[in-house]
């Protein structure tokens, strides 16, 4: 369903994506792993079509259609959506209003959809639905709301940039359950993660290194490869910290 062909992208004169090739199948949970600065978030933004992330070369195909020159909205209307690593704060917008935006089917019972999504991310709806998205929510709560807003959208491709960051260890399992719920609703999920638990719960994984996909395959093997081969690699920024 998603097929990336040799994506190349620079920002401020610096080449960040150096030729990404990747395939994600229908209903597949695909995790992207790789060290800090490998270009994972950049790839997510490029897929969503954010301003300033227009590839110089390469193409993005989604169900056979070339998306490369489509706007964010046009991509969203085709069922693609993104949860940011650091979600935006919206002053004055309530959780209800925010989650309602994602509901694509106006005939749906909005309130029920929103309650359902909040319950799925383990936030008590009665406690959260009238709160402001921009105010006094903890980082973890805000991330959960972001995931709830993805759920209400019922996407075909959900791009999740580190849904696990800022979430306590106990809740990691819930994130896995959520990703599976998205899949059960018919979505493919591209999940960027630093957590083994999430990578290993996916159907396939890809390892990114210096702006390209180094290798794709079985998640256990890919994450083992990452640990064995990349960590000792002296070019890796993180390697110094991780080895100590």
């Amino acid at each position, binding site marked *: 369903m998603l097929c990336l062909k040799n994506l190349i992208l620079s920002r401020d004169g610096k080449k960040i994506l150096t030729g990404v090739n990747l395939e994600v199948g229908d209903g597949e949970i695909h995790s992207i792993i790789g060290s800090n600065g490998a270009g994972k978030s950049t790839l997510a933004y490029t897929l969503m079509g954010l*301003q300033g992330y227009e590839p110089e070369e390469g193409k993005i195909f989604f169900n056979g259609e070339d998306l490369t020159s489509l706007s*964010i909205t046009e991509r969203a209307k085709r069922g693609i959506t*993104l949860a940011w690593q650091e979600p935006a704060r919206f002053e004055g917008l309530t959780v209800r209003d925010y989650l309602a935006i994602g509901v694509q089917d106006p005939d749906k019972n909005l309130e029920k959809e929103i309650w359902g999504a909040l319950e799925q991310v383990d936030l008590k709806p009665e406690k959260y639905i009238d709160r402001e998205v921009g105010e006094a929510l903890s980082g973890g709560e805000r991330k959960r709301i972001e995931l709830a807003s993805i759920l209400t959208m019922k996407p075909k491709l959900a791009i999740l940039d580190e849904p696990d960051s800022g979430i306590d260890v106990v809740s990691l399992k819930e994130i896995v359950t959520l990703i599976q719920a998205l899949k059960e609703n018919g979505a493919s999920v591209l999940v960027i993660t630093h957590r083994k638990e999430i990578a290993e719960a996916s159907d396939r994984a890809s390892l990114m290194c210096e702006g390209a996909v180094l290798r794709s395959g079985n998640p256990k093997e890919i994450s083992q490869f990452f640990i064995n081969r990349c960590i000792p690699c002296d070019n890796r920024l993180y390697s110094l910290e991780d080895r100590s």
Partner: protein
Amino acid sequence: MTVKTLKVLSEDLKNIDSAYAAAGGNTAALHDHEVSSLVISGSKVLSANQTEGVVLEKEEQENGVNIKLTIKKGYKIPNPVHLCFGVVPEDGLQQINMDFVAEEASSVELIAHCTFPNAVKVIHKMEAKMHIGKNASLIYNETHFHGSYGGVQVSPKSFIKVEEGGRYLSNFTLVEGRVGCLDFDYDVAAEKDALCEMITKVYGKAEDRIKIKERISLNGENSRSVIKSRIALTEKASSEFIGITEGHAPQARGHVDCMEVIQDEAKAEAVPIVRVDNPLAKVTHEAAIGCVDKKEVETLMARGLEEDEAVDVIVKGMLA
């Protein structure tokens, strides 16, 4: 009263009712005997009702009305007092002079709607003196609706004195329709332990001109204040915001928070002024002017909204 003038009056009432509704007012409240209310159209008082603890005096003038509204000592008024100031025709001058007193330990909420739905050339001037007595509390919500022609010139000026332990919370909203020309000037003096919060929310469009000046003097020990203003501007609208907080007493605490978003060719200027002459007082400020946050816009687009719809949701949220 002749049948004819009665008929004219009921026609006026009908017009002002729909104008009031256009401004977001709850017309049922204007006809409820349990609710104190005052309805003014142009320079005519169309209806007035006072409930226990509320004394409402009014005097029609050539171009407006003088009002004295008193909340008697110790009375906590259960229902908000509704005020409606309107000019229904395309042009007119309305000068409202208001003398408001909340006597000691009283409490009340005022809901004022100023509505000029058809204005092409309307001038509305308000001069208010508000006195909030010891331990008294006033919540003052003022919502304006100026129609879609931009032909309104509004200048509300207020001097507010908040005595020891008093509370003054005001909320001025002008976000639907055009603004026209707004010259807002409020000046608050706060005594010991007084609490003041002033919120203004304005959405300027087309050629609207907005001037907002708010000043709070924290004169008494432990007096506290917040000035919060949210201004959104599109097209060729412009705004000038001056938020002044003065800390003159120990433990006085004040904060000025101004956030403005601009689009198109709009222009905004924000000047927070902080004056402190007591070493134990503390006043802070923050002001930000910028376009709508890009990440917020892109997040909503990634949920399926078009760019302009996304901007609209964000601006409305900020002004909610």
